[in-house]
């Protein structure tokens, strides 16, 4: 589905990605683990078009996409969330999710004028679907609130709902559990698990080991911009060398 080969990136003299390969398959959940600064988010940013790699290729569904702008990658089916929720703070929750409709007809003034009826119908559909996603994350009752009135964990759930609204077959989740607490933990787990079971290709950057064990099929361990190990979760967690890298001690 999504396949990266030899992705390399330097910021100044610092190598943040060195010859990275990654394969995501439909119906599989891959964890991307490693200490802070390993290059996990940079890898996400390269896959989604927000950081241009110095070298390497990315293909999605048999198509080369490494030169595609970010918004087009979302439109071919790669959805993502961010470490911080990054919600649109002047918009209500409903509008936050609605604006993520894949074919957003209202983005063109031409459509607004010449395909007015179609835009109206699309808006009605989008509103129903958006309310459905807000319901899945337990926030349908607050559809008309501004995002700034929500807890951090709730904002992350809206971020997830927004990514799901985009309807990509591939989803990249950047630390979905970070800052999530209380009741929202179970909601987050349940929604991500449901997406995995629905057959999406999912990659998750996460530090919460319980969550990873619970949901992911395999893991890739990154350190200093390199992939140093990949395989089953249990094997990686049992590897003392990786534990030492993770916690920064010198094994």
């Amino acid at each position, binding site marked *: 589905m999504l396949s990266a080969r030899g992705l390399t990136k330097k910021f100044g003299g610092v190598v*943040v990605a060195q010859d990275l390969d990654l394969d995501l398959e439909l119906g599989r959940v891959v964890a991307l683990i490693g200490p*802070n*600064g*390993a*290059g*996990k*988010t*940079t890898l*996400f*940013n390269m896959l*989604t*078009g*927000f*950081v241009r790699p110095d070298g390497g290729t990315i293909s999605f569904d048999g198509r080369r996409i490494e030169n595609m*702008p*970010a*918004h*087009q990658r*979302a*439109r071919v089916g790669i*959805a*993502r969330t*961010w*470490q*911080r929720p*990054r*919600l*649109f*703070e*002047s*918009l209500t929750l409903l*509008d*936050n999710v*609605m*604006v*993520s409709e*894949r074919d*957003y*007809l*209202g*983005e*063109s*003034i031409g459509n*607004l004028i010449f395909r007015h009826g179609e*835009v109206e119908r699309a*808006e009605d559909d989008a509103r129903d679907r958006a309310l459905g996603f807000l319901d899945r994350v337990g926030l349908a009752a607050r559809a008309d609130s501004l995002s700034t009135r929500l807890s951090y964990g709730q904002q992350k759930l809206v971020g997830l709902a*927004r*990514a799901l*609204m*985009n309807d990509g077959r591939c989803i990249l989740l*950047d630390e979905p559990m970070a800052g999530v607490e209380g009741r929202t933990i179970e909601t987050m787990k349940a929604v991500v698990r449901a997406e995995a079971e629905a057959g999406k290709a999912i990659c998750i950057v996460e530090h919460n080991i319980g969550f990873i064990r619970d949901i992911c099929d395999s893991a890739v361990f990154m350190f200093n911009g390199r992939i140093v190990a990949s395989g089953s979760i249990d094997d990686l967690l049992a590897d003392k060398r990786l534990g030492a890298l993770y916690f920064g001690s010198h094994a």
Partner: protein
Amino acid sequence: MTEFFLTMAILAGLNVLLASGFNMILGYGGLVSVAQPVFYAIGAYTSALLSMKLGVPLPLAMLAGAALAAIASFGVSLPSLRVSGDYLVIASMGFQLGIVHVINNIELTGAASGLSGILSAVEGPGRSWIYAAIVWTICAVVILGIRWLVTGPYGRAITAMRNDEEAFASLGRDAMRIKVTLFAVGSGIAGLAGALYGHYFLFLTPDQFGIFSSATLLTMVVVGGAATVRGPVLGAILLTVLPEAIRFLQLPVSIMAPLQGVLFSALVILFIFLKPEGLFGGTAVGGLEAWQGRGTARSKAGGRV
């Protein structure tokens, strides 16, 4: 005296159009441009020349002026926005200075001595009354059009784009397309205002369209309230009337002349620091955020790597 007030009303209406157009670019688009006066000029000269030289009927000539201003805007926005929003400031400055220089030097536009003999849209004793009514009717149509555009699905997209452009792109939305469109709409409205100017005042010189008018328009948008529909309307009326009102104080010319410039600059600075949402606005948004440096912190991809 009536004539004076009608002229003021017409100028206020034209400023409402210019400021509302500039607000599409600065307020809603979050783009910083200084080329609004030159799009005003393009509309004015195009409409005047089409009607004088080719006999094009005035309404058509005016629309052509607006259309050419909108089309010309792509020449600024497409190359510069492809690189980054910051380049638009420089590209717009180059375009503004370059086109005014051309107008200043070619015979077609009357060069530096100006273009006279422009056809009047309305003749007869009630000329100013009728023209003021025409200008304000067009203002009403444009304002309603802007309101229609910025509410509903397009407005939702614009707001999301301004809040967080990268998150917006990650959802498949094309920020570049929206910015280029808003820039064209704002420029087209300026072109329309220019066309209306020419067929009433009947004389154009390049000096009227200098880069410094951008500062006046900026003041109108900032004082009224950027990224709101009514902000630039009320800001434009207020700042058309205010300088004239000061004249009634009968201050000596040596004080009056610089006072206006100082007043406008002071207003922009005061409002950006003390009341960034403007007199009639809700929350501070758009280009002003970028100027205050608030926009930069949240526009970086990701966070920790």
